[in-house]
């Protein structure tokens, strides 16, 4: 079990062992960085391909299948195309900010991977305030989007950037609030502790992941919705809604800078997905006790891949929202629901002390009802707040 499980840790140790002791921390840090960048860089390439293929299949098309066997070399072709394109900077653009924006977006996103535990003993740094670090470095992306949109001196860019910021600010609130119950129940901001808190098994060897509790399930769904919006993905892709504002804040970008934006957006999605896996899906723990022999990093990767597939699936299914629907949905539905979810988590915590027969199902149902009823009411209220369905006079 431990051989394959710890193979990357072992490789890192051996590689660092060749260097003098004084630089060993530096070397192991560099190795961790290189590992993360290599793995998630590849992951980026594969996801762009997978996204196009899965989207194609969901729309009864083939998707890319020309470059290489089954189109597997498509990312390579895309990369060559992107990097050989002319880098156009608009004449009236703010050159410095136009240049800095992709960097400001991409660099902090890489930092966010530092605290994610990818497997047993496999996180680059153990920060005491890991979650806070994650959200703190993620907050730079809003400024980057603004810089990109404003510096382009293009009205579509500016509108896209303003939409992006309004959306990111609105959805950051439920994103953080849906994480709080996990922190409350785990009693720590450190991601390794949160994973460890989900590491035990209950009856039948089923894992005690947060998603198997009412507040965890609700939290995961809230988190995923907010994460979709944070990473500007469909159905919340208004900032880049190509049918309305060309490409939003990306309109004036081309070539390598555009590729960097693309990379930054996907990495942001990966980081948030990794966080969802860590917080709600038990991190690198196996779902059943008898599956513990499978390496921990495999479980992380499997859950990660499943969530990425889910994001692609949602993108293939749902149409884009309107801006007022988007903001109403956040402030009138997600934020109150995530606040109520806090109360549910507290109720779950207090009912944990109950001692009478068949307590587990009762406790589960009670807490589930506590979140399901507000969900129903808020949903109805939200539907009431929306304008009524449009009446068509001529088309019918």
């Amino acid at each position: 079990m431990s051989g394959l499980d710890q193979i990357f840790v072992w490789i890192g140790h051996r590689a660092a062992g060749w260097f003098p002791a004084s630089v060993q921390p530096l070397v192991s840090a560099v190795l961790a960085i290189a590992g993360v960048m290599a793995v998630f860089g590849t992951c980026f390439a594969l996801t762009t391909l997978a996204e196009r293929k899965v989207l194609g299949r969901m729309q009864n098309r083939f998707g890319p299948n020309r470059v290489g066997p089954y189109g597997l070399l498509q990312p390579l072709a895309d990369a060559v195309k992107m990097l050989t394109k002319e880098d156009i900077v608009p004449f009236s653009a703010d050159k410095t900010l136009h240049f800095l924006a992709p960097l400001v977006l991409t660099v902090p996103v890489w930092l966010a991977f530092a605290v994610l535990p990818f497997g047993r003993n496999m996180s680059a740094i153990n920060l005491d305030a890991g979650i806070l670090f994650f959200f703190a470095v993620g907050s730079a992306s809003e400024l980057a989007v603004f810089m990109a949109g404003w510096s382009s001196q293009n009205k579509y860019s500016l509108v896209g950037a303003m939409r992006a910021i309004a959306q990111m600010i609105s959805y950051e609130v439920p994103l953080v609030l849906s994480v709080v119950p996990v922190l409350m129940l785990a009693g720590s901001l450190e991601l390794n502790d949160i994973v460890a808190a989900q590491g035990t098994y209950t009856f039948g060897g089923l894992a005690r992941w947060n998603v198997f509790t009412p507040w965890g399930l609700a939290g995961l769904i809230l988190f995923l919705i907010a994460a979709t919006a944070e990473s500007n993905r469909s159905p919340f892709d208004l900032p880049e809604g190509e049918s309305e504002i060309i490409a939003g804040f990306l309109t004036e970008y081309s070539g390598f800078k555009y590729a960097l934006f693309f990379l930054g957006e996907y990495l942001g999605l990966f980081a948030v997905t990794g966080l969802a896996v860590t917080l709600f899906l038990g991190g690198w723990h196996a779902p059943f006790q008898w599956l513990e022999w499978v390496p921990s990093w495999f479980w992380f990767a499997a859950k990660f891949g499943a969530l990425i597939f889910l994001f692609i699936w949602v993108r293939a299914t749902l149409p884009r929202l309107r801006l007022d629907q988007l903001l109403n949905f956040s402030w009138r539905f997600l934020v109150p629901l995530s606040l109520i979810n806090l109360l549910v988590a507290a109720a779950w915590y207090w009912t944990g002390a109950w001692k009478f027969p068949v307590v587990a199902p009762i406790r589960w149902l009670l807490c589930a009802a506590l979140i399901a009823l507000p969900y129903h009411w808020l949903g109805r209220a939200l539907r009431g707040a929306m304008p009524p369905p449009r009446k068509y006079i001529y088309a019918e």
Partner: protein
Amino acid sequence: MLNEIAFLLCAALTLAGAVAAMMLRNLVHCALCAAGAFAGLAAIYLQLDAEFVGFAQLLIYVGAIAILIVFTVLLTRGAEIQPGAASSASSWWKGVPVGALVLACLIWSIMASPSLVRLPSPNVHAPVKQIGEQLMNQFVMPLETIGLLLTAALLGAVVIGLREPRTSEPNS
């Protein structure tokens, strides 16, 4: 030595950001430079072993306040360089001497105080858990007050920012 260099870098970033934020003519540049200064300060907090505060600084100042400022700049059309911008240079005579005077006082008192040349206590650690416990015990009253204050500020900002319904004004 490494610490010293890191400190100097962060300090340089902070000061450069602050000076640029106060001197540049384009308000969006000012706001972004201010964000840079706030980020530099966060780095200095991290260097001072105040992890939690450093991240909070980054989250709140860079993630929220800088964005708010940028939004306000755009909403008040401040990004355009006004024709009156040249005259604002003439008001430097008000600000700079006062700032320099205060600065001189502060620096003089810092330099004159011998007790301030001290080295940090070793191995300071501020675990998040301890911060949380303190917030819930010793500082629970300020915490609640802050909560109330923030709620009031939120409501106040919304009320102020609300566009009042267009009433017919007879004399306009």
